[in-house]
């Protein structure tokens, strides 16, 4: 088994873990959103890697009858996932703006502390 057989998946794992760790360890809400984006990108890489075929080309028909095409299904899934991803990111960011206006901070710990104090 050579190094190149799986290393795309390894990069996926590394990015996935970095994203996950960012979400869990950082208390800044924007940083969490950024972590979520990284996490998302990692999953996209995973899907697209599975659609790849050796010696293949993009799934747009060409005249060559012997052409091998990569699998179009993961592409369709991820294409829409990216756009839906930016929609959810925008929603999250707009909530962050409102949180900043209500609490004066976007640090999770300070928000929790304020909640504690007001009880």
């Amino acid at each position, binding site marked *: 088994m050579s190094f*190149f*057989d*799986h*290393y*795309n*998946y390894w*990069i*996926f794992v590394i*990015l*996935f*873990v*970095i994203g*996950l*760790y*960012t979400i869990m*360890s*950082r*208390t*800044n809400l*924007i*940083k969490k959103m*950024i972590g979520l*984006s*990284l996490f998302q*990108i990692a999953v*996209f*890489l995973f899907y697209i890697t*599975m*659609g790849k*075929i*050796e010696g*293949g080309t*993009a799934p*747009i*028909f060409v005249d060559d009858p012997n052409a091998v*095409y*990569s699998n*179009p*299904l993961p*592409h*369709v899934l991820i*294409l*829409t996932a*990216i*756009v*839906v*991803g*930016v*929609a959810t990111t*925008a*929603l999250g*960011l*707009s909530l962050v*703006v*409102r949180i*900043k*206006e*209500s609490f004066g901070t*976007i640090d999770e710990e*300070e928000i929790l502390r304020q909640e504690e104090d007001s009880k």
Partner: protein
Amino acid sequence: MMEEFTNVFLMILLVAGALGVLYVRNLFVATMLLAAVSFLMALIFVILDAVDVAFTEAAVGAGISTVLFLGTLSLVGAEEKESKKKTVLPLLVSLIVGGALFYATFDMPKVGHPDTPVQSSRLTERFLQQSPNEIDVPNVVTAVLASYRGYDTFGEVTVIFTAGIAVLLILRQLRRRPETEPLEDAQPELPETASDQRVTPNIHDLVPHVVAKLLIPFILLFGLYVQFHGDFGPGGGFQAGVIFAAGIILYSLVFGMEYTQKLLPLWVVQLLLALGVLLYGGVGVVSMLLGANFLDYNVLASNPIAGQHLGILLVELGVGITVTAAMLSIFYGFANRSEFNKQTGEN
């Protein structure tokens, strides 16, 4: 060997960029690094033959989402506070998850092998072999997106529509702030939020003004090309919508929100937002009225292939309109937030 070298190089940059995003404290830098990571990812998608996805990632991931992050930063400030939270548990959880995934990759089939379950699936064969006869659109991704999976794409357009509405609802509300503590609001006047009162631009604005005026028509033209060329090459409604919105966002960054809202008032954007979804759904209803299933385009024209072409063209147009309007309404929501607060006398 050269391809592998490029691949490994890009992957190393990708991991380095991601680590940079994690460690850097300035959120502005983190956002820019995230955009760079998105661009690298787009390049890797091209290597992996996913040109449509690469296009989307470059336009959406690196383009629009960076604009949104920057818009948010201009409202909430860009410094991340040093967190005192213990980071041992998150690290442990991440490493365990990572370890489990890493262990699982050894069971994954070799990358790109033709016998993997994904490649030998009967669905794949069906789409790649039947779509020239059934739909006759060279780009299989467009064929699957707009025709075979048209129903799902309709759902996704609805999600974007909902997000556009939701952001407006959240950001165009009066703010309620606790009466007890006056909050100091540091709102750095970034160009996109600054209410530009000057009518005559000063000399420093001249260069961006001229460049923007030169660029914007071509950006919009490119958007139209991507929209209507999606059947033959990479592209389609999603990418075109984002490119179109990007052209208008560029206009507003350079000339100010005031002019943009004269050009394209919010109610027009909201109307377009609904119009795209209605167009998409309308195609489905028309095909039902003509006696076929929802979104079955075969009956739309004299023969099935012409019907498919017409159907794909119309739904992609619907997607393009909704995506443009959604991106714009989200942008308007962010860009107008500080202005909106001032108008309602809360600041």
